[in-house]
């Protein structure tokens, strides 16, 4: 029984972390859905979102209930700004250029934010109490529980959003940009909104992750986990993000513990990369993605 309890504890906590990965990956999926552009800047956006929220609380003196919406709104406009200033100029360029551009943004922000706000790790206190919840012999980390539930709610919100008028507009644009244009949908605006929403997802993820592990540049390392989740889920599927987030989170929490017992230590960091590699080899369109990925 001990074995089962241990597995349950690892899985539940892993799943909750996975939901938070899913929130980061949501930004990648939103942008890919609308414009088929790879958003490799999502890790840095998460970090910037966390820094901005921290700054409005600590430097601006805003209370918590104001700082969170402030951070989210600021990130919406930063996301739109990035699209307007850089990506709109890249329309029609080869995909390698766009990928490199977002990666360039990622590493620029990764260096810039600590330079502006100082390199010391910041505490972002959401006022959650951290005592674990104990169900029988299973310990559940309360901070992860709260943040995981919030993350799930936000992903659900994104799924609902795609049923609204704006959301349908985004879906049309993701399906066929030229056709959307011809029926009068403002394609540039739709892509801009998708980047804004990626910023919102990044801000939410940044606040949640910042409250768990503190705010510094290491938040941008979430990029690789988010990419693993997005690719496993299938890049253009919101449901896929949740499922893949759970899978990656559980794998990352469970596998290293058992591997360590058979003598392979420290596998935690490499799980996400192996998930990416396995997905690309076995099922490149992911669990729920559309199968029309161009093959060579």
């Amino acid at each position, binding site marked *: 029984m001990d074995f089962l309890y241990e597995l349950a504890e690892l899985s539940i906590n892993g799943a909750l972390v996975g939901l938070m990965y899913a929130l980061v990956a949501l930004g990648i999926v939103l942008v*890919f859905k609308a414009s088929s552009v*790879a958003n*490799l800047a999502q890790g840095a956006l998460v970090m910037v979102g966390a820094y901005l929220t921290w700054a409005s609380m600590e430097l601006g003196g805003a209370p918590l209930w104001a700082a969170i919406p402030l951070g989210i709104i600021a990130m919406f406009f930063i996301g739109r700004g990035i699209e307007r200033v*850089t990506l709109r*100029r*890249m329309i029609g*360029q*080869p*995909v*390698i*250029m766009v*990928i*490199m*551009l977002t*990666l*360039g*943004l*990622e*590493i*620029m*922000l*990764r*260096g*810039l934010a*600590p*330079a502006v706000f*100082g*390199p010391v790790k910041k505490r972002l206190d959401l006022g959650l109490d951290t005592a674990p919840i104990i169900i029988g012999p299973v310990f559940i980390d309360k901070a992860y529980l709260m943040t995981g539930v919030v993350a799930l709610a936000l992903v659900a919100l994104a799924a609902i959003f795609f049923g609204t008028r704006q959301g349908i507009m985004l879906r049309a644009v993701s399906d066929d940009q030229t056709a959307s244009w011809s029926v009068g949908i403002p394609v540039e605006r739709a892509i801009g909104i998708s980047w804004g929403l990626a910023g919102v997802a990044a801000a939410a993820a940044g606040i949640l992750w910042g409250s768990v592990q503190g705010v510094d*540049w290491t938040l941008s390392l979430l990029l*690789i986990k988010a*990419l*693993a989740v997005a*690719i496993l889920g299938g*890049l253009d599927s919101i449901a896929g993000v949740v499922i893949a987030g759970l899978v990656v989170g559980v794998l990352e929490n469970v596998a290293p513990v058992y591997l360590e017992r058979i003598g*392979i*230590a*420290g*596998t935690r*960091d*490499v799980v*996400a*990369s*192996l998930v*990416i*590699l396995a997905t*690309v*080899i076995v099922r*490149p369109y992911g669990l729920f993605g559309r199968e029309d*990925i*161009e*093959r*060579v």
Partner: protein
Amino acid sequence: MFYRLAGVRHTTYSSARQLYPIPFDRYLLIAVVAVAVAAPFLFSPLALNSYLLPWVIWSTAALGLNLLMGWAGQVHLGYAAVMAIGAYTAIHSVRAGVPFEVALILAGLASAAIGCVFGGAALRVKGLYLAVTTLAMQSIVDWTIVHVPAISGGSQATLQAPTLQVLGWPIDTDAGRYWFALAICAVVTSFLLNVSRTSLGRALVAVREKDFAAAIIGVSPFKYKLLAFWCSSFIGGVAGAVLAFCYYRAVTPEQFHLEVSIQAVAMVIVGGLGSVLGSFFGAGLVLLAPIFLNNFVNAIAVALSLPLHAEIISHIPLVLYGALIVGFLLYEPLGLAKVYDNVRNYFLVWPFRHARH
């Protein structure tokens, strides 16, 4: 002005097809090569060891990556991992008693083999997937090196490189190591200068421009993309081995982290995709700019007596690489090579600017 075109008439096919049909370009090349060869006598040991040597080695690496990114049009975000495989293979082979020349080839082959395993997996798909798979390759190779004691010699270990020995001659002077790196660089450069004139180069460009169009005219995209991966990884492995033996003279996992991959990508993009000259420019700017910017920021901090945290200094290169990549992609997507080309085109017809077409 400098580039006199008057009197340059080609009467044979071989003269029309030569690499540098304009005499001034040839003289310039000869002058640059002469300065490069005589560098140990011209420059101080400090300049030779900390600027010229890394520049030459990194240019070699950038050329290898440019073959993949510029000619074949594939993204590779794990080039440092490829170089790491080369460096570790070379060091372990030489320590096991293999002559250095053979170890260098082994380094290239090991990098090419492992690079192709990842490349082959990634080439079934393209674009974002390829980028992410190479990113995964970087972290998997990093992890393997750190966690397998047989490779890294234990965690946090540094493997000292044995003395360089080429064709039986021990090379233990700064100048000798520099000349060796320069010779490798020259071989790689001449390969890349000529690759555009071969069927391989033309096939790569065809695949880059439109892969299914290439497939229709009988150029197998998968085969040529894999070949590009193979060549590029081979060059990367050799460059990694040269970097380990001639520059660091030791090897640790930290030398080949993700930041180094990004640095290599920045070199190619800043220099110019698909340009040999650009790879040299890009490597130079990306290597030297952070040094000057660091000094500059330090000077400002001292002048204004601001306290400057060490970690901020360590983040400056990242900001710079990012800004360079973004700036060049937005404003000069063909990089420094294009800037040079613009200047050259201006002087080609100077002062008759109206004659430019």
